[in-house]
């Protein structure tokens, strides 16, 4: 329990850092820290597989891409923006109210906390087998739908980028070039030119 409290505090501070830090890279780093702490929390629940996947996928891949884009675009805080007066404070107030409501409900929850031993037992020592059973059992449809979702994302991303690449190179639109080779070229070129800027 004490471990959990420490980890929870670190996670909340990290999450606040994501929102409050001015420098985008710092905010992203704060998010990395939060995700890593979450992985440690999984370890304390003996969910080792989940912890490793959390680190590899979120901290090791997704956040690196996040930071990559932040650095490539060199995003800076551009100072005050035009917005409705008081909007910022209204947002803070809404956040505080929501957080308070959630905390209040959480503390009023009458149920006893589950025994960690029981939780660990359900997690089967954090092995990959349990997750595999869930993924290819009751979540089979969700698993396949995620595939469709990723396909949609890829098609959408290529559609948006490809059009820009085509018009940037002055190629006639809608000539029906085979997309695969060209997309890879475009991607490599985009990365390369980004690297040389």
């Amino acid at each position: 329990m004490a471990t959990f409290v420490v980890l929870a505090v670190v996670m909340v501070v990290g999450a606040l850092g994501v929102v409050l830090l001015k420098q985008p890279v710092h905010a992203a780093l704060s998010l990395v820290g939060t995700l890593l702490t979450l992985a440690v929390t999984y370890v304390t629940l003996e969910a080792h597989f989940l912890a490793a996947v959390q680190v590899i996928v979120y901290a090791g891949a997704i956040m690196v891409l996040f930071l990559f884009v932040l650095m490539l675009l060199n995003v800076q805080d551009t100072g005050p923006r035009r917005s409705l007066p008081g909007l910022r404070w209204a947002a803070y107030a809404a956040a505080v109210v929501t957080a308070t409501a959630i905390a209040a409900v959480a503390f009023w929850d009458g149920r006893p906390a589950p025994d960690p031993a029981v939780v660990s037992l359900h997690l089967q020592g954090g092995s990959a087998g349990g997750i595999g059973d869930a993924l290819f059992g009751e979540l089979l449809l969700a698993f396949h739908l995620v595939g469709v979702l990723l396909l949609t994302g890829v098609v959408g991303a290529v559609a948006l980028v490809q059009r820009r690449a085509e018009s940037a190179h002055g190629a006639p639109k809608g000539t029906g070039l085979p997309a695969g080779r060209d997309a890879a070229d475009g991607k490599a070129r985009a990365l390369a030119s980004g690297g040389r800027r």
Partner: protein
Amino acid sequence: MNLPPIMGDLVVLVPVVTLVVFAALTLLFGVFTRERAALGGLALTGVIAALVFTVFLWLQARAGGVAVTALGGAFRGDALSYAFSFIILIGAGLAVVLADGHRVRLQLDQPEFHPLLLLAAAGGLVLVSAGDLVTLLLGLEIMSLAVYVLAAWRERSRVSEEAGMKYFLLGAFASAVLVYGIALTFGATGRFDFAGIAAAAAAPDFAARGLLLLGALFVLVGLAFKVAFAPFHQWLPDVYTGAPTPVTAFMSVVVKTAAFGALLRTTGTLVDALGVGPIGEVLPAVLAVSIGLTMVVGNFGALLQSGVKRMLAYSAVAHAGYVGLAVLAGGDAGVQAASYYLFTYTFASVAAFAVLLSLMDDDDRGDRLERLAGLGRRRPWLAAALAVIMLSLAGFPPFAGFIGKAVVFQAAIAAGHAALAVLGISTAVVAVVFYARVVMTMYLREPDAHTPVARPIPRRTAVVMAIGLAATVVFGLFPGLWLDWIARAPWWSAGF
């Protein structure tokens, strides 16, 4: 290899799988051919095939009288899902034809356009057929992700880019809220599936009602964003205006119908699960306030617009408020009323955008009201079509829009929301003003030298308009065609 019993009746997945397969085919076809014109036909074939399968399954379910589920209840084939899938597929089909007629002019002929439309429709089908919250979320995301891209489709158009960006950012935020709500609901009940949530909440020792309420509120907010309930409607006017008009038509029918299907199922389950008492009162109260606000904001917002496309966008918000009355009414009556409203709205909305398309410039701009001046004399048929649609949307008898409002108000009053129904009727009077303004401009105002002449209508667009117009009139005169048909179905609560 023998399948585990969890598989259930996989046949209910056929419409969704059909759409995904045709999306993949269209994608591959687009890679290997220069013949872009064929892609629209292929996409339409996919939609029609899915429609045929849906109708077939629906008839089968009616004959059997029970809801069919697949994969452990994750995917449901009941009257709600079939009725809404049917509406979604009709809307998608009309939008595909509409886009095809203006494909080259509006630069929609990139090979990814149709696959994304099909994937969005597939996501919509998943959304209305979801038996658990995870499937629901994934359906919503598949649909939304495709539509974000479609909204930003117009090249080098800041308005379109703004539309896509705005929709994406706010949509992602709404999804995050939804996911959080799902997590809290799971924390309260330990289940993702609607049946399980209902069962867990019905248990006598259920102690987490507060947590469930919080989760339900977050889920409601996440879905309210998609159906554009006030105060989560603010993205809608900009996105509808900025997106290419065929995509706007698609969004106003497919996305809206799918989101309402999910909202009906979710609020139905959650309101029941929360039960009676002070905690159970909160969710309907919040929903009622939001719906009241939606009707007011939508109608008065539309009143202030000078562009027809933007006016239709605000009116879409207002119509969401009316369908919301049916959601609030809940139960089988609410679902039936909502399905009738959305079914007829689909035809009217697509037809309205079809007329608008033939009036607007090649860059998809120019929707000022003044452009309609003198249309009644220059293009009497086009003007008549638009007039009928406007009157139907305003709720004039004998068109379908009138019956739609009538059944919705009836359901709301029957469920004890008389005050809200009265508010709805009064705002509907406001709506008459801005719809009538369109009609008046067409017939009474003289065109000046700058008023452009409407271009000839592509045949495919004319077909869409004819279908929309015919349905608006026929279902207005004979509402029983739809209402009686769905009243004799195994309804959504039947399977639990």
